[in-house]
C-alpha cells in the first residue's frame, strides 16, 4: 500500500541481528536459548558474578566483519567496547557491553529495489553488542501491568548481536520493508544470522520524521516493538498519518520513543526527550580493544561467498533468465544452489528455472517444507525435466512424478512407475489404436463434431483430453491432435 503524505517522509532503521555463533559474546554459554529452563543457560560471566571478566568471542568478530564487508563498510583495524549503563533486572551487570564511537565496521551501503525502483541506502555503521535477558510477568496476558512480581531469565543475556544503523535514506514504509528484506537476505547469504523476525533474531527500530515545508528535517520519532515486516510497515504508516494529522492541526511533533501495539495497531508514547535515559557511556576496561589486522581482513574477504547481487548478475548472464525469475531463484542461496545443481545435472536453464520456481516451490509449500528439506534431488529433477523436454513423458505426468518424489525417498524410475506411466513414450501404433477405441466409444461426440456443431471446439478438446487421460499422459499432445484430426477427417 502506498502511503500518501504531502510532507516528504524520512526513515532510518536500526536493525539488530543475532549472530550465528555457537556461544555467547563474552562467555562459553550456548546461544541456543529458546525453550530452555529459565537460567539454565548461564554462567558466572553472564550472570555478572563479582570478579568475573568478559572474554570476547572471536567468531562474533568475524561474523560482524563479514556483515560489514557485505554492506561495503570499512572494517576498522582498531575498535573497542563501551559500557551502556542502565538499571533493569534483565541486565545483570547494570550495563550492556556495546560498541560506541569506534565500531567494527564504518560506513557502507545497501542497494535495494522497492516498487520497481532501485535505491541506495547508506549505512552509518555496524557494531557488536550483547543481548539482555528477559523478564517474565506472571499475568494472564504476560504484561507487567498488574503483576505482583516478575521473574528474570538470563538465558538470552550475552547473546551476540550486531546492530546495523542506516542513514535516513528511506522515504516510504515499503522501502523500509524492502531494506529489511535485503538486509536479511544478505545476513543469510553470509551465514551471519538466520534473520528470523518471529523468533527475535532480527529486530528493527525505526526513526521517522516528516520534512518541513522549508525543506528542513522534521522532529524525529523512534518506534520500537515491531516484530514482523508487516508490523514494521503498519507502524510506519500509522506514524506518518499521525504526524501529518498533528502538523495539519497546527501541532508540533515531539522527540520521543513510541511503542507499536500490534493488537491495537497504534503507536504509543514510551518516553520523551526529557525522560530519555542517559546511558553514561564508559569505555569497557575489562576487555582489550578489538584489533583486526590487514591479513585478517583479507582472509575475511576471501571467505566471502557470492553475494545476492553478484549471483543475480551471474544468473542473468549465464542463464539468460528474466529479472522476476532471478529474483525468486536467488532470494535464498539454498534455492539458488538447488537451481544451479539442477542445471549442472543437465537440465536446460530456462526449463529448470520454471520447474524450480513453479513446481518445486509449490510442492514444498504444500508439504510445509523448506528447500533444505526437499526430497527431490537436483539430479532427479534434471532427469525429469529432460524427460518432459524430450516428450518421453508429458508435463502433466512430470508434475505428478515430482509430487511423488517430493513425498517419498524413491528413485525417479520408481516414481514414474508409481504414476502408472510406462517408461517411454506411447508408440504411434498404440496411439492409433487408442484413438480408434475412444472414437468408437463416443459416437455422439463424433457425430456432433462431424455435423459441424462443435463451433467452439469444446467437443474436440474433450476428445483430446480423453486421449491424454487414457494414455496416462504418455501421448505426445501434438501427435495426438494431429492423428485425431486426421481420423475425424477420414470419417467425414
Amino acid at each position, binding site marked *: 500500500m502506498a502511503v500518501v503524505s504531502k510532507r516528504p517522509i524520512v526513515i532510518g532503521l536500526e536493525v539488530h541481528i543475532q549472530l550465528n555463533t555457537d556461544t555467547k559474546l563474552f562467555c562459553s554459554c550456548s546461544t541456543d536459548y529458546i525453550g530452555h529452563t529459565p537460567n539454565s543457560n548461564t554462567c558466572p560471566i553472564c550472570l555478572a558474578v563479582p*570478579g568475573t*571478566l568478559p572474554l570476547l568471542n572471536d567468531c562474533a568478530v568475524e561474523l560482524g566483519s563479514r556483515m560489514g564487508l557485505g554492506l561495503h563498510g570499512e572494517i576498522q583495524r582498531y575498535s573497542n567496547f563501551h559500557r551502556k549503563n542502565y*538499571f533493569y533486572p534483565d541486565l545483570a551487570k547494570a*550495563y550492556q557491553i556495546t560498541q560506541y564511537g569506534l565500531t567494527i565496521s564504518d560506513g557502507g551501503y545497501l542497494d535495494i529495489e522497492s516498487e520497481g525502483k532501485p535505491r541506495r541506502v547508506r549505512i552509518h555503521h555496524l557494531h557488536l553488542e550483547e543481548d539482555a535477558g528477559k523478564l517474565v510477568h506472571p499475568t494472564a496476558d504476560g504484561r507487567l501491568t498488574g503483576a505482583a512480581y516478575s521473574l*528474570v531469565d538470563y538465558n538470552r543475556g550475552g547473546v551476540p548481536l550486531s546492530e546495523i544503523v542506516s542513514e535516513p535514506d528511506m522515504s516510504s514504509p515499503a522501502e523500509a520493508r524492502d531494506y529489511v528484506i535485503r538486509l536479511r537476505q544478505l545476513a543469510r547469504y553470509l551465514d551471519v544470522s538466520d534473520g528470523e523476525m518471529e523468533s527475535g533474531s532480527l529486530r528493527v527500530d525505526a526513526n521517522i520524521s516528516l520534512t518541513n515545508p522549508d525543506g528542513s528535517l522534521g522532529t524525529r520519532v523512534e518506534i520500537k516493538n515491531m516484530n514482523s515486516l508487516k508490523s514494521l510497515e503498519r507502524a510506519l504508516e500509522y506514524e506518518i498519518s499521525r504526524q501529518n494529522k498533528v502538523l495539519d492541526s497546527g501541532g508540533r511533533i515531539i522527540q520521543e520513543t513510541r511503542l507499536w501495539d500490534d493488537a491495537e495497531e497504534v503507536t504509543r508514547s514510551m518516553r520523551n526527550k526529557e525522560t530519555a535515559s542517559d546511558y*553514561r557511556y*564508559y569505555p569497557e*576496561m575489562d*576487555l*582489550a580493544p578489538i584489533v583486526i589486522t590487514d591479513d585478517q581482513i583479507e582472509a575475511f574477504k576471501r571467505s566471502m561467498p557470492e553475494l545476492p547481487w553478484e549471483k543475480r548478475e551471474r544468473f542473468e548472464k549465464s542463464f539468460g533468465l528474466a529479472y522476476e525469475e532471478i529474483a525468486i531463484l536467488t532470494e535464498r542461496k539454498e534455492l539458488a544452489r538447488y537451481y544451479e545443481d539442477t542445471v549442472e545435472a543437465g537440465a536446460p536453464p530456462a526449463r529448470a528455472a520454471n520447474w524450480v520456481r513453479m513446481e518445486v516451490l509449490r510442492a514444498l509449500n504444500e508439504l510445509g517444507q523448506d528447500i533444505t528439506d526437499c526430497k527431490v534431488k537436483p539430479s532427479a529433477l534434471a532427469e525429469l525435466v529432460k524427460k518432459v523436454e524430450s516428450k518421453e513423458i508429458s508435463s502433466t505426468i512430470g508434475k505428478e512424478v515430482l509430487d511423488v518424489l517430493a513425498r517419498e525417498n524413491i528413485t525417479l524410475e520408481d516414481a514414474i512407475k508409481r504414476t502408472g506411466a510406462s517408461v517411454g513414450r506411447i508408440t504411434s501404433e498404440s496411439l492409433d489404436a487408442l484413438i480408434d477405441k475412444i472414437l468408437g466409444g463416443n459416437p455422439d461426440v463424433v457425430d456432433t463434431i462431424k455435423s459441424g456443431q462443435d463451433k467452439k471446439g469444446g467437443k474436440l478438446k474433450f476428445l483430446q483430453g480423453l486421449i491424454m487421460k487414457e494414455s496416462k499422459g504418455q501421448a505426445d499432445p501434438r501427435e495426438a491432435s494431429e492423428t485425431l484430426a486426421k481420423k475425424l477427417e477420414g470419417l467425414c
Partner: protein
Amino acid sequence: MEIHELTAKETAKAIKDKKFSAVEAVRSSMARISKYDGVVNALITVLEEDALRRAGEIDALIARGEDPGPLAGVPYIVKDNFCTRGVRTTCSSHILENWKPTYNASPVNYMNAAGAILMAKSNLDEFAMGSSTENSIIGPTKNPRDLGRVPGGSSGGSAAAVASGYVPLALGTDTGGSVRQPAAFCGIQGIKPSYGEVSRYGIIAYCSALDQVSPLARSVEDLALAMEILARPDPNDTTCDGYARPKFSDATAMKDLKGCRIGVFAGFEASEMDSDLYGALTRAGDICREAGAVIEPIDLPIAVKYGVATYYVTALADASSKLGCYDGIRYGTHIEGATLADMYANTRTSSFSEEVRRRIILGACLLTEGFYQNYYGPALKVRTKMAEEFEDVFSKYDAYLLPTTPSLPYPLGTKETDPNRMYLGDVFTVPISLGGLPGLSLSMGFNSANLPLSVQIVGSRYGDSKVLGIAAALERLIGRPTVCDPRKLGEVA
C-alpha cells in the same frame, strides 16, 4: 630467628629442608593471629582448619620427596576482595556480607599451586575505596607500629598482617595507592606491578582500568618471588598481557647501581610534605648515588598537579558502572521494596556505606551528558599528557624516586570526616597508577618517633624488574623491615 620472623623465601627453604614443618609454620601463624588480631583487627575470616589440612598435604609431599613449589608451606593472606571458592568474600561490605564465591581468583590459584597456604582474608576499606581501612563492616584495622594510627588502605589488613608477623607474604590490590600507601604506613615493602602484569580474574573490581593485584612482604626478594608466581598471562583476563615475563628474582641479585640513571622527584616545596618523609627521599637518593647511580632532580608537573583530580574522575566513573551489578537480584543482600526502584534503592542504600555511595553517585554524575564533556573527557586528555610526561622521563632515566605518601600514618578517625583531605594523600601514588607504571614502596626505617618512613621507586611500563633490582640494592644498604609486636607508641619504651 623464630618462624614468624622469616621471609617467605626463608620459610619455604626451611620447610623443604625439614627444619620445621608446614604444619608448624601454620601453627606459628595462628599463634600470632590469636595473640594480636583481637587488637589489630586485620582479618575478616581466618581459615585455620583449611590451612592446617593443606599444611599436612604439603608436609606429606615433602616426606615423599616431592617439591610442593617455590612457596612450599608458606602461609599467606589475601585481601577480602579476592574470590575464594567456598569462602566468604565480603569486600568489607554489607552487600556481600554472606557471599561465597564458587571459584578462586586466578592469583589465589597461582599462589596455592606454588605451595603457599591461605591463612586468612584481610580487612579493607569497603570495595577498596579508601586510604585508611577504617570503612569496613568489621571496623577499622589498626597500625601495628602504633595502634593509635591507621594502617593505610585500602589493603590495610594485608599490610598490618605482614608487619605483625602473621604471615611473611600477603596480597592486596592497588588502584591508586592501596598497597603502596599501607606498605609505607606499616613499614614494609609493597609493589604495584605494571597494569597488565597480573590477572584480575576473580578480583572484585573497584576500577577495571587501574586495579592491579599487588604483593606485600618484608623483603624485596619476597616481592620478586611473588611476582614470579603472579605475573603471567591468563586466558580468563584479556587485559592481562600475554608477553613472556622476565625472571623477576634474577633482578634482585643486582649488587650495586652502577650505570643506573635515577631521577629524584623535586617538583615540590619541602614544606608541602612531612619533613621526615622528605628526608627519607633525599637519603634514598644519596644512597643510590653512593651505590653508583647517577642521580638528577626531576619534575612531573602534570602528574602532580592533575593526578588526583584525573584519578578520581577515572576511578569513580568506572566504579559507578562496575558496582551496578549489586542489585540484590542474583547474589548478595536483597531488601524488598514496593516497586522495582524501591527494591534497588532499599538494597543499595542500606548495604553500601556512605563513602561507597558518594563515589557511585559522583561517578554516575561525571558520566552524564554535560559533565562527561567537562570532566571525563578532559581527564582522558590529561591522562594522555601525563603518559607523554612519563615517557619523556623514561627516555632519560631508568627509574625515579618520589615519596609514597606526603604524610606519616595519621591517628585513627582523623581523616574519615574529610574525604577531600584523604584523597590528597594519594598525590604521589595515583599518577603512577594512571600511567600503568610499576611502583614499589620501600621501607626507609623509622623517624625519631618510631613511625615508619618510606620512599617510592617507579619504573617504566613493564620495567618491574628494574624497580625490583633498584629496591633490592637499596634494601641491602638500608636493611629490611622486621616484624613488630603490635603496640601503642608511648606504651612501650
